[in-house]
């Protein structure tokens, strides 16, 4: 496995003057500045060296150097190393090579910056609109600084997203934006030949609320965690922790060990309640409401526990830059131990009852098959990847908070189907309970849980942090700015890469399995749609899908 020096040396040897410089503010972070012409080759080289693509970050630096910046980030899981390759293109001709043909997961990131910054990617296989509403005027790029955060262009009617071409002889079945199986709005067009799925297209981002732009322009550092928490209704602490860690990494802030332990406990409590929630929903999606009722019953004491610990049953509001807001008292400690004990006992009963149920086996085994190679190629994350034989877990590979001192197993299965995701999630609840017990046992008492910042945060420092959310890994990238506010804050929720893998999972399955396959990634469209643009009421997609279908049906007559 390559070290940082080896990576820099290899890049310099192979690409010479295209590598401008490098910076390593921390042992496990490396930023390499490169020329934009070689971006595709260097990305491929990093992947060949064992890097896993995370996300791309585009930003507007027109005021500084008249350019648009682009950062592709990679994780080297065995070395606990994050690499960002930074490049920039002039704002008047923002053209760079697409890395999507080789790294398919970059597809969305690049489409995102084509929408939001006006970048152009040569060789992109699907250069369609992703983030912006279909009626957003062309030529206005909302993430550029000249565009105000609260810009609302007038809405237009009958502007449509053009779906991918339907394969010969197939029919289109629209799923969503409002559909009983989707709990949040997203539109899947499923192309079926009889009952068998031959392809699909996705149009989402209907709920993007402009959170990144809002926070960059209107909020200060320590207000952002509370907005970050509201990116997702289920994994709030995850986003807040990830953001706080990104800023702490950029600004080199050390927090007390006790605060890190408390963060770990919060993250694991969140994992327990999220997995129980998913287990219930999965049961519901395949028509097995007993599981739904029982796992939500088991989950409820966890919500009440959160209320007693933090003052709210969700959106705990615990995590800020510098630590956490509330300490864990001895009474709360006993409370946590009692509650997780109960959850463990009851979940064991549920596990025994459903693992032997042949009806569940028939609905989930062999459904949503994706080969391990494809999962690696598409950089899928979280339980979706672990159920398909890819052994990645940020908690173990890039330890943060107090995970370096925790002993836990990472469940990995090789059956590559939805059934394995069920097992992974159930087993992870038991692991989470194990971690909470270790935390409470070992928690040191080394000072205040909230560390005061000694100095203002210096501008233009880069920080990246990933946190293992219940759904996969959350990546936050922060460029620090002036005026006590981040210059750029990029969020990548786990559903962002995983949704891109859904067409693979759907392929050659039965139409009736669509709900559970989409459900199996535990999709969180609000997380994915968190984007930079103030939401304008689209509705366009739904209307047009109908229109298209109507037109099609008339043509058939």
């Amino acid at each position: 496995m390559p070290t940082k020096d080896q990576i820099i040396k290899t890049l310099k040897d192979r690409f010479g003057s295209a590598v401008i410089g490098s910076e390593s503010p921390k042992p496990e972070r490396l930023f390499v500045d490169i020329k934009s012409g070689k971006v595709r080759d260097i990305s491929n080289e990093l992947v060949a060296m064992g890097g896993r693509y995370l996300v791309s970050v585009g930003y507007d630096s027109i005021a500084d150097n008249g350019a648009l910046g682009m950062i592709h980030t990679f994780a080297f899981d065995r070395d606990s190393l994050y690499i960002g390759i930074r490049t920039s293109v002039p704002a008047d001709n923002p053209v760079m090579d697409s890395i999507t043909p080789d790294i398919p997961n970059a597809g969305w990131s690049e489409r995102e910056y084509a929408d939001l910054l006006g970048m152009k990617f040569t060789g992109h296989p699907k250069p369609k609109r992703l983030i912006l509403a279909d009626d957003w005027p062309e030529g206005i790029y909302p993430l550029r600084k000249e565009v105000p955060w609260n810009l609302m262009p007038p809405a237009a009617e009958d502007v449509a997203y053009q779906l991918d071409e339907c394969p010969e002889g197939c029919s289109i079945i629209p799923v969503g934006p409002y559909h009983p199986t989707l709990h949040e709005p997203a539109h899947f067009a499923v192309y079926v030949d009889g009952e068998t799925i031959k392809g699909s297209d996705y149009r989402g981002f209907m709920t993007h609320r402009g959170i990144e732009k809002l926070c960059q322009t209107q909020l200060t550092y320590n207000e952002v965690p509370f907005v970050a928490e509201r990116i997702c209704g289920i994994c709030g602490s995850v986003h807040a922790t990830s953001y706080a860690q990104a800023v702490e990494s950029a600004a080199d802030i050390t927090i007390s060990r006790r605060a890190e332990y408390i963060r770990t406990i919060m993250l694991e409590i969140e994992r327990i309640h999220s997995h129980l929630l998913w287990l219930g929903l999965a049961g519901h999606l395949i028509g097995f409401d007993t599981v739904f009722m029982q796992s939500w019953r088991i989950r409820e004491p966890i919500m009440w526990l959160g209320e007693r610990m933090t003052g709210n049953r969700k959106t705990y509001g615990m995590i800020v830059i510098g630590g956490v807001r509330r300490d864990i008292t001895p009474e709360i400690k006993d409370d946590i131990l009692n509650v997780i004990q109960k959850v463990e006992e009851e979940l064991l009963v549920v596990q025994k009852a459903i693992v032997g149920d042949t009806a569940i086996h028939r609905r989930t085994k062999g459904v949503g098959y994706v080969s391990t190679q494809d999962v690696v190629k598409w950089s899928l994350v979280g339980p979706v990847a672990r159920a398909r034989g890819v052994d990645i877990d940020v908690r173990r590979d890039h330890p943060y908070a107090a995970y370096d001192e925790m002993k836990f197993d990472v469940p990995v299965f090789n059956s590559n189907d939805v059934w394995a995701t069920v097992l992974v999630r159930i087993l992870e609840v038991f692991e989470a309970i194990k971690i909470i017990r270790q935390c409470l046992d070992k928690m040191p008492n080394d000072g205040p849980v909230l560390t005061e910042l000694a100095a203002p945060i210096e501008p233009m420092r880069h920080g990246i942090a990933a946190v293992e959310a219940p759904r996969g890994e959350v990546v936050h990238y922060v460029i620090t700015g002036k005026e006590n506010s981040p210059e750029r804050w990029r969020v990548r929720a786990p559903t962002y890469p995983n949704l891109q893998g859904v067409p693979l999972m759907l392929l050659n399955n039965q139409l009736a399995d669509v709900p559970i396959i989409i459900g199996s990634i535990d999709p969180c469209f609000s997380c994915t749609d968190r984007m930079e643009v103030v939401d304008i009421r689209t509705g366009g997609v739904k209307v047009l899908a109908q229109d298209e279908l109507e037109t099609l049906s008339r043509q058939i007559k």
Partner: protein
Amino acid sequence: MWLTSKIKQVLMVAKPGVVTLKYPFVPRPAPENFRGQPYWDHHKCIGCGGCASHCPARTILVRDLCQELRVMVYDGSRCTYCGRCADVCPEKAITMTDRYELATGDKNDINETMELFMATCQRCGRCYDHETTNAIDKMTRIGYKYDNLEMRAVLPVSSEQFDMKLYEKTEKFKRPEKMGE
């Protein structure tokens, strides 16, 4: 195997029985540390505006009507109950109460307005003259001291530099015509 798992499922369901609470017919008090509706104690408040400058939802607004009179408005309709205001208050004038049944037909029921008399410094009275810059005025990024109380909104700062002609330059500013027309 199928039958045994069904028997297990019946036991799993039968053992806990009915767990649904009788709320709202039986009241359910919130736990001790609950973050409910915030309460301002005007006897303790010194009008420093710390709560306003830390509020992520920008739900606390401050406006100086004159040198002596400062109005502070809490707009409960937008509050996220994070409790940050209570954390940062130097005088502990804000407490998070255990009230949570806040649904109302009239927004004013959950708003709170305080008019505070601010003392003028006896030396020259100009240190906190709000037209010149001082440390507090540097917080104008979020509209501090000049919030628009009627609109319940912080004046947006970033819009000023946007040129509306940007619209006209765009290719598709002319909205597409309706289908079939």
